[in-house]
């Protein structure tokens, strides 16, 4: 479309120097652990790409993901908005409200049908659509509607990616993840509660410059979710030596030893926290002295308690255990009756053995 401004023209208008732009591309590449050789390719792709229209849908969420992304340091969301995307609908950030806001979404969809990117945060209630509506439209309808013309969907936050806190037991609203509803569009999951801001913006940048990144079995970009926190954790040497904090105020805690015994989920959690860190690389939960909750993993709320060590059985073991016990007891009773019947029959058939009939007749 001729009226669509190209990124390099926009940069000129905004006074962004070539040098600043290349720096931006380089930081993007480093965040995603891409080869430095990729920097010119990112630059070229971004330079020649028209600004992509982004529609951001917020469903059953706490706005924590939005709060987080606005604190991204490199690339900042402002960078993104001004340089790479056209954030056409985001009801927390946009100035418009009510019908005007919904009009903006409908307009963007019509204008960029088949090309726009949908970002979702929050889970979708399907038990009763009335649990969460925007401008009288249920989350379910709005997602289906909007996703129909999308090039791809990015589910930011664990709620959109895996259902999150809404989906946690007993899940009163019937909350589900985006991927449970939309089956015909590429979906990139960026879980976390919230996700690391740089990871959110990095994934968006990757999509804009190089397309959909390589994903793992849970739909997460491998660049950010390839390693377990445990494997990159600076406290790992203490784990290897068997030095653990047993309480939050004991000697081990003061010495900064491994938090495994306090319930750290680092060994089973894949995220970039230990390398990218938070707040402009200042720190991350384990560095602050708290065990990892495992927030980038599905159903982390229900995994048996945040302060229970991983070695203690977790998951939905109570229900499963009860079922197993009940099933086992039923099978045991059935088997017992069967065995009892066999034995009773045998006892009835007992012929008293006399010393004189211990030999075979033949």
């Amino acid at each position, binding site marked *: 479309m001729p009226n669509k401004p190209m990124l390099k023209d926009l940069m000129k208008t905004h006074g962004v120097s070539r040098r600043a732009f290349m720096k931006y591309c380089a930081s993007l590449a480093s965040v995603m652990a891409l080869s430095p050789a990729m920097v010119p390719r990112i630059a070229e792709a971004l330079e020649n790409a028209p600004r992509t229209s982004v529609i951001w849908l917020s469903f059953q969420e706490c706005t924590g993901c939005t709060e987080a992304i606005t604190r991204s340091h490199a690339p900042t969301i402002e960078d993104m908005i001004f340089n790479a995307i056209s954030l056409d609908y985001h009801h927390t950030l946009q100035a418009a409200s009510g019908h005007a806001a919904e009009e903006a979404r409908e307009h963007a969809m019509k204008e960029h049908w088949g090309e726009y990117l949908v970002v979702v945060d929050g889970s979708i209630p399907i038990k009763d659509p009335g649990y969460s509506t925007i401008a009288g439209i249920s989350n379910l309808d709005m997602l289906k509607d909007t996703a129909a013309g999308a090039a791809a969907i990015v589910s930011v936050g664990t709620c959109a990616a895996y259902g999150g806190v809404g989906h946690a037991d007993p899940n009163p609203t019937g909350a589900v993840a985006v991927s449970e509803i939309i089956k015909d569009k590429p979906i990139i999951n960026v879980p976390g509660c919230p996700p690391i801001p740089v990871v959110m913006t990095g994934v968006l940048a990757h999509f804009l410059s190089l397309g959909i990144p390589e994903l793992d079995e849970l739909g997460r970009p491998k660049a950010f979710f390839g390693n377990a926190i445990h494997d990159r954790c600076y406290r790992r040497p203490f784990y290897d030596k068997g030095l653990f904090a047993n309480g939050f105020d004991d000697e081990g805690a003061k010495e900064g030893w491994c938090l495994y015994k306090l319930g750290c989920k680092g060994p089973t959690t894949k995220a970039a926290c230990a390398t990218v860190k938070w707040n402009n690389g200042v720190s991350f939960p384990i560095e602050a002295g708290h065990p990892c909750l495992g927030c980038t993993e599905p159903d982390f709320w229900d995994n048996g308690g945040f302060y229970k060590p991983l070695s203690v059985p977790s998951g939905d073991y109570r229900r499963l255990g009860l079922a197993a016990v009940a099933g086992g007891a039923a099978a045991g009773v059935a088997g017992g009756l069967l*065995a009892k019947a066999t034995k009773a*029959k045998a006892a009835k058939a007992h*012929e008293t*053995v006399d*010393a004189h009939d*211990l030999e075979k007749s033949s």
Partner: protein
Amino acid sequence: MTATLERGLNALREQIDAPVASFFSSCVSCGLCAEACLFYRATEDPKYIPIRKVELMRRIWSREFTLLGRIAGMFGLVKNVTDQDLSDWETLVYDSCTMCGRCTLVCPVGNDITMMIRKMREGMSAAGHAPVELIGAAQRHTDGNSPMGDLSKAIQAQVKNAINETGIEIEFDKPGVDYMAILSAQEIAEFPDVLAAMARIFKKAGLTWTIASDAFEATNVGIQLGSRDVARKLVQRVVDAAERLGVKGVISPECGHAYQALRWEGPNLIGRAYNFEVIHIVELLDKLRAEGRLKTKGKNSQRVTFHDPCQINRRGGINKEPRRLLNMFSEDFVETDDAGTFNWCCGGGGGVGANERAEPLRHQAFKMKKVQLDKVEPDVVVTMCAYCHHTLDNVFEEFDMEQEIVGLTELVAEYLDDDDAGSGEKA
């Protein structure tokens, strides 16, 4: 009625109970029982692994008592037990197991393999697969009064000899006395000196006793054969006599399986508790010692070691008693390796000693015990089971071993201090 496969399989089904089911389900095939088995260790032949000896019973349990096994059986995945199977297993169950209980002791999941062999023998004997010698003994004992035939004249003669030797009266069928003694056929026929020994010790201790003329036999071939019906009949004879005479207790003699039969299996066989106590002769002697009613004089300077009978020590619980008695008069008492509850069997128990075709294997199995005896080089081997005594006599001859074998009761009587005619005596 004759022995048939169906009767045997039915007997096995009767034997399968909750403990058996839990044993089969909890076996982890670790192989520790192999290392504990006399016959496996002596031959290193895997067919002698204890748990494998009860494989046929496991197969019946799996096929008829478990849901999965039943389904597997429908598809022919678990085979039926045939008469040929029982034939193949006969030597494993009767020739290569003395029911010594070592495998049970080491099993990490607590499986009583010995008990399962005992149960397995129920089916084998009911199906006509018991060794002929045991069948013959069962017939002689149920028809007469002893597995060796009619020993009523022999016991009368041996008692008369003991009376002549000691000058102490031993009365048959005397009601109201403290104890009724029963004897192993082996003692009556081979080691009758025990009668005089008992007469002297009991006289000194002021204890009254008698022998029932119709129930003097302690052995119970039903236990070795694996027939509860036969065993029950034989236990009942002793119980009837003891209750008729109104004795306080029955003295189980120096005989392993006799103790097992009367003390442990008996009440279960007849379905009720006794009105009298069952005490092993060595247990009684140690009790008299503790009460100061048994004193010895003199010292034995020979190098003495003790052979623990499996059924009395490992499976009977009498461990410290014989050692306390031996220490009263032994200057040079040495223990073999594994003495006590982990002692190696002499190889003759559980009916194996009576079984002629098992002789070569029995001699091979004695190797385990022989190594230990050779190590301590004793002059005398003391034991408290007439059948261990008998078996050791035979294998010592086979292996040209010079040691003397003595029953503990006889040895105690040898050192009995009965000069001082006053103390502890009633009359």
